[in-house]
């Protein structure tokens, strides 16, 4: 294993060990700060309750990410084809981006009148802007000489898009995808906090709220650990995807091989 993987792993184990020791030595009660071993035990004992919540959060996150990819990329392509569409729509995309999601989530929840749908909209709102803006940047960052070459050989707008602009935008798009994967999870969790939903079909954020009311702090930590693990898993899979798509030609992927 490379130093890339071992160094952070060693540090992590060390910190967890110190944490466990400190909890015992200072006799901190579990309702203030549980040790990592207790948290792991809670994760196992509460798994039947936490697993469905994990599934709910994960589903909303992935759906929101998929919607962000489709709508963000399509809008970016539309903007690159028509200057007027871009000039008229882009400012509103910025407005959506800069408005804090916590502030508009209550409105969306009222309007959507369906809790899953409103969570999905909130997570999508947070996730889609990086994809839109980065893909636009990528579609524009095309070598001028290559554009001349395509013009010289009579490629129209569509074939230039297909064979030149889209591949050129791919690294930018993939960079945005990694950011948006994390943002979709954050959006889903934040919206769930605002919604404060109950019942069977509710996600990890609600488990944290619920456990907090009941002062079941180890369960709060267990749910938190699951959210973090989900975020890490999303980031790693998108990084892998990016690496697989770019490894033959793009500088960013080549640097990883050195």
């Amino acid at each position, binding site marked *: 294993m490379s130093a890339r993987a071992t160094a952070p792993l060693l540090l992590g184990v060390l910190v967890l060990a110190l944490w466990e020791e400190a909890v015992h030595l200072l006799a901190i009660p579990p309702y203030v700060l549980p040790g990592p071993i207790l948290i792991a035990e809670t994760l196992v004992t509460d798994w039947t309750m936490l697993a469905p919540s994990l599934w709910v959060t994960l589903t909303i996150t992935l759906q929101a990410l998929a919607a962000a990819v489709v709508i963000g990329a399509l809008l970016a392509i539309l903007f690159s084809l028509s200057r007027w569409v871009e000039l008229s729509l882009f400012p509103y995309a910025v407005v959506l981006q800069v408005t804090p999601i916590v502030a508009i989530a209550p409105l969306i929840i009222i309007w959507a009148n369906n809790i899953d749908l409103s969570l999905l909209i909130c997570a999508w709102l947070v996730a889609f802007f990086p994809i839109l803006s980065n893909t636009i940047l990528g579609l524009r960052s095309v*070598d001028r*000489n*290559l554009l*001349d*070459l*395509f*013009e*010289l*050989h*009579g*490629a129209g707008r569509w*074939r230039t898009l297909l*064979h*030149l602009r889209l*591949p050129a935008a*791919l690294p930018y798009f993939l960079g945005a995808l990694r950011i948006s994967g994390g943002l979709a999870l954050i959006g889903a969790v934040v919206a769930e906090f605002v919604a404060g939903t109950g019942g069977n079909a509710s996600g990890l954020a609600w488990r944290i709220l619920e456990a907090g009311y009941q002062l079941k702090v180890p369960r709060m930590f267990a749910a938190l650990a699951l959210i973090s693990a989900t975020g890490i898993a999303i980031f790693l899979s998108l990084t892998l995807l990016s690496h697989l798509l770019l490894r*033959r*030609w*793009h500088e960013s992927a*080549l640097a990883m091989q050195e």
Partner: protein
Amino acid sequence: MERTWTSVVSARGVSKEFANGLRALSDITLNVLEGEFLSVLGPSGCGKTTLLRLIAGLAAPTGGILERPDARNETGFVFQEPTLLPWTTALANVALPLKLAGVGRKERLRRAGEALAGVGLVGFERSYPRELSGGMKMRVSIARALVTRPRLLLMDEPFAALDEISRHKLNIDLLALWQRERFTAVFVTHSVFESVFLSQRIAIMSARPGRVWTELAIPVAYPRDEAFRTSAQYAGLCRQASQRLFEAMAVKAEAA
């Protein structure tokens, strides 16, 4: 080699003024004859690249009459940089103009393979541009420009960024290609030595606005090789071309 003496490109009083009012070219009169190797020599900023873009049809003149081959794929263009698609192989890069022309996959890959072989890159079909040296990338770029078998090959200082050894080798290989494929070549350069080595005729330009100041014939038979490069005749022709270039640049100084 036989000559038919018809013009491939004919410019009469061509001028180009940009939208910002800059006059890049003024009253250019120039004929490029079928099958000839013409160099356009001039200081940087004299509008050489603009002239080439006009001939390629990538920009329109603002004055005068310009006749050029306007059918698609009759003109090949080699840029200053190799300008390859980084995400695909050398073979697919060379096949690109055929793909855009709607040639079937099998046929275009076959012709691209032949064009790559023509520039001496057998065995590099599957290589990505980043795996190739600067000289090899330029060879791929030349193969791509020639894959449609154009009548006219336009080159915009294609070897300026290469080391001298690669440049000399590519000069000789380019002449061999030209003799074999019999396209008409217009080669833009700021190197006196390169223009004398390659061409039958040199159009020397003066700057601001760009004009064809004078023309110089290089009456030396092909094939030209390294022996020609070290000959007294070559040195003499280079001196002549340099003098004319200095005259052309002095014109610019008076005007300024």
